[in-house]
């Protein structure tokens, strides 16, 4: 297979970005701003969906597509990578779709938005496919730099800039840790290839203090990206400040790519080494998991801002996924499949939730506070129903994707003997029900304060489409998860 075809998902994302950029520069005429922007959103969405479709198209080519020697084994087009590429393409496409409506409504429709999204997706996909730590890092930076820009996309907004600033500073800080970890592994293994590092770590190098230090630094760097406690603190600020479509993008695409990297680094590079034994990284990840679930959920209860609440919830969800990572560490293929399936489910339900939040907001009247949603169920039943569905899914109740994803992760964790973590996780789920449902309560059971208007949804077909897609996928993954589940099970490296 030609290298072009093999890398086509990645290349399609890059191409999408380029086309969007060119269209923005060349086709744009001052007179017809809005039209072009709408076109840009559609181009980006279609492009990213197409790349997801390409990733799925490559599925049939066996567990791993053979790549020419010239690429030197720095990337692998394996089903693991493809699954992530597809998830990222889906998530990126959906968030571009949301942006199509959102940016226009809020008057921040600048053309660079879409190329940034596409390039960020490409970086994320590269991260997921990288088998070389350098390439992984390049992917990560490509993704992150674009997101830093996107987070501060509302240049006139103090919150947006503040979020971007914090995200950027801490992101760079974390990247430095990651890099130093990579450098130390290079010191030990004389290579940045994951496979070679793994080989080296299985030998004497595995018990060197440098290896321990490298592991610590890598855990910090990757822990930051997945917003695991205690590296999570940027998350609420960045999520709250960023424009809603960007928040959606951050919460799913960036997180998915970071988990892909985490899985490869921990399971492949450190798998089977002494540092991968129970007192090595697994105990740290177990701590991350418990702390993330608990802190995320406990603090989310207190949030009045929906985006911030969803930020804490995303911290909690990272905790659930980490339970799956631990299950994967125990060797069951279901563990890794659980992580993959969870991330896919999380992508659709969280983007759906953000899409609904974005939907309920007119210019200068964004509905971000819980109280803004009072009584919307009466006025806008369909949108409220959709948001309620996503909340139910995030809670993890059947028949939604969130339920099955949790069930699958928990089951694989129990298979791996990790039932104490599962108990913690289910108790946390119960806590989370409180704040997710609080939004449902507000929408369905409360009336707006006297005099306060009920939040108005924007008239945006794009966002509505995104919501419908997400809702259908949430139900599909909840009711008929089999097909995607078997794909997740096949997604090896």
């Amino acid at each position: 297979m030609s290298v072009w075809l093999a890398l086509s998902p990645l290349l399609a994302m890059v191409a999408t970005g380029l086309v969007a950029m060119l269209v923005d520069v060349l086709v744009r005429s001052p007179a017809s701003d809005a039209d072009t922007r709408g076109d840009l959103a559609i181009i980006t969405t279609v492009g990213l969906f197409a790349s997801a479709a390409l990733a799925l198209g490559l599925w049939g080519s066996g567990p791993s597509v053979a790549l020419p020697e010239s690429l030197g084994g720095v990337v692998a087009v394996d089903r693991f990578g493809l699954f992530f590429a597809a998830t990222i393409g889906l998530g990126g496409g959906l968030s571009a779709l949301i942006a199509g409506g959102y940016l226009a409504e809020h008057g921040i429709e600048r053309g660079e938005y879409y190329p940034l999204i596409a390039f960020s997706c490409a970086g994320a996909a590269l991260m997921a496919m990288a088998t070389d730590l350098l390439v992984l890092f390049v992917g990560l930076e490509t993704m992150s730099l674009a997101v830093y820009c996107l987070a501060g996309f509302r240049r006139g907004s103090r919150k947006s800039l503040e979020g971007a600033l914090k995200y950027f500073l801490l992101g760079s800080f974390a990247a430095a840790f990651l890099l130093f970890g990579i450098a130390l592994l290079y010191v030990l293994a004389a290579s940045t290839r994951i496979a070679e590092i793994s080989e080296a770590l299985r030998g004497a190098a595995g018990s060197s203090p440098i290896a321990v230090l490298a592991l610590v630094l890598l855990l910090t760097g990757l822990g930051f990206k997945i917003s695991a406690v205690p590296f999570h603190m940027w998350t609420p600020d960045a999520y709250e400040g960023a424009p809603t479509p960007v928040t959606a993008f951050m919460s799913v695409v960036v997180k998915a790519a970071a988990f892909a990297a985490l899985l490869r680094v921990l399971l492949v590079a450190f798998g089977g080494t002494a540092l991968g034994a129970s007192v090595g990284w697994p105990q740290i990840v177990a701590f991350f998991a418990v702390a993330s679930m608990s802190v995320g959920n406990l603090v989310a209860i207190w949030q009045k801002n929906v985006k911030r609440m969803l930020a804490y919830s995303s911290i909690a969800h990272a905790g659930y996924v980490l339970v799956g990572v631990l299950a994967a560490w125990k060797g069951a293929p279901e563990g890794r499949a659980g992580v993959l399936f969870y991330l896919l489910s999380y992508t659709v339900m969280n983007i759906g939730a953000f899409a609904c939040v974005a939907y309920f907001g007119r210019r200068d009247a964004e509905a971000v506070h819980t109280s803004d949603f009072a009584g919307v169920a009466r006025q806008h039943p369909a949108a409220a129903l959709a948001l309620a569905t996503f909340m139910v899914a995030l809670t993890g109740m059947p028949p939604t994707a969130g339920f099955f994803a949790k069930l699958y992760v928990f089951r694989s964790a129990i298979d791996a003997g990790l039932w104490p973590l599962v108990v913690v996780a289910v108790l946390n789920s119960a806590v989370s029900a409180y704040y997710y449902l609080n939004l449902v309560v507000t929408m369905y059971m409360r009336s707006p304060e006297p005099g306060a208007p009920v939040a108005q949804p924007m008239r945006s077909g794009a966002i509505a489409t995104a919501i419908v897609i997400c809702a259908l996928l949430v139900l599909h993954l909840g009711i008929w998860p089999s097909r995607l589940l078997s794909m997740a099970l096949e997604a090896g490296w």
Partner: protein
Amino acid sequence: MIPHLLTALIAVPALGAIAILFCPRQTPRFLRYFAMAVSLATFGLSLYLLPGSLGRAGFRLEETVSWIPSLGIRYHVGVDGISMWLVLLTTLTTPIALLASWESIQSRLKEYLFSFLLLESAMIGTFLALDLFLFYVFWELMLIPMYLIIGVWGGGRRIYAAVKFFLYTMAGSLLMLAAILYLTSQYDTVAGKASFDYLDLTRLLLPPDTQLWLYLAFALAFAIKVPMWPLHTWLPDAHVEAPTAGSVILAAVLLKMGTYGFLRFAIPLFPNAAHTLGPTIGGLAIAGIILGALVAWRQPDAKKLVAYSSVSHMGFVMLGLMAMTTAGAVGAVLQMLNHGVATGALFLLVGVVYDRRHTRLIEEYGGIAKIMPAYAAVFAVIMLASIGLPGTGGFVGELMILLGTFSAWRAFEMPRLFALLAGTGVILGAVYMLSLYRRMFFGPVRNEANRTLGDLVGREAICLAPLVALVFVMGLYPRPVIARIEQDARQTIEDVRAKQRLGRDLTEARLLEPGELSRTGESIDLEVPAPPGVPGGGQ
């Protein structure tokens, strides 16, 4: 016979609910009639469960479709003599509840009817599911519509009540989910194949200490739903705030989920743990019976009184189950039905005056027997059914439960004392019910507002008539019901006892071999000596 009858039972209300979503909001009459038609059609369908239901223990009309093969999850439904009646109870009470809210629900009718039909579908599904995954899905699915019904169409503190209801139930069911996963994981290890199927999982024998934890998780979920003392405090709030129809469904069907869960899942899956914890749970049941009754007695709010009476009555059901005798189990199921009918009707009745006066405080009424004679008469009949007067359904159920408990020397060390204590619940039941009746209906008419109350109207009478009829049918000729319950309850209890013996000294999980249960021979538990005086044991 109707093909795929069980699926149809689940699907018809669900499809009806979805159809309602696409109906225009501006035609409330049409929406109401449509929902009613759907629920009546479901009821009609459910009547087809009756033919062929007698004769053989075990599940009938099973349908199995592979669903999520990698986890061994199947769409597996089936009905037996126990679930059949509960399904019928569900399909009967739903149209009644819809009719009861015919006029009182005006706002957001579409959502209301949607919730109700969805709820019906989920309830039927819960009773029919024979796959633990499917069961859990329906179990949780029930939660949301009920939550909305309480929270959207409820009374003043409806949000508090709805959230409390939801979180209470959710906390319990999530631990049950963890236990289900653990159980299936064990099955996977032992059997070498994944399955969530009830019939597979009941073949799994677990060591007693493992059983204990899993049973506790299951029991927590079910006990909250029952609700067992001391996990009952959501119930009074939920009942008081829920609209009448919601209370009816809650009392008539939803609470039965808990006891059904014990009988269908918790006890057969973990027989040794059920045996070990039997006295404890039985003791809590008795605490519930007595304290529930006493607290009910002192309630100023009629609905709250009835809610607490549910705590007391459901304590009886739990006691019957914990006895682990056939009589106890049959009585428990029978009492579930009776309680469903009687308490459902009680909530309807409280709703009748609430619709007129918009207060549930007992002291607001008094002497209305003169003003509303027909209402008073129906109320009296239902009240008597509720306190288990012979000739009404409650009597047979309570008698069997008490007798089942009384004869259960296997389950308790002091079954007689338990039965006696529970028996005081019968007395206290009379105390609070009669005192409610006296305060509402007897005495002089103190409140002028009551003088103009109208008696039952046709719609209300139609709601109540089938329930009143059932009260008598269940009391005077319960044999057809009991016969069908008994064939399965007996089988269940016998299997449980056999599994108890096999699992007692187990140190590692193993599978039952086919036919192993029936080979275990005599059913007398020789380890616990029967006290003297009881036939079959002692001197």
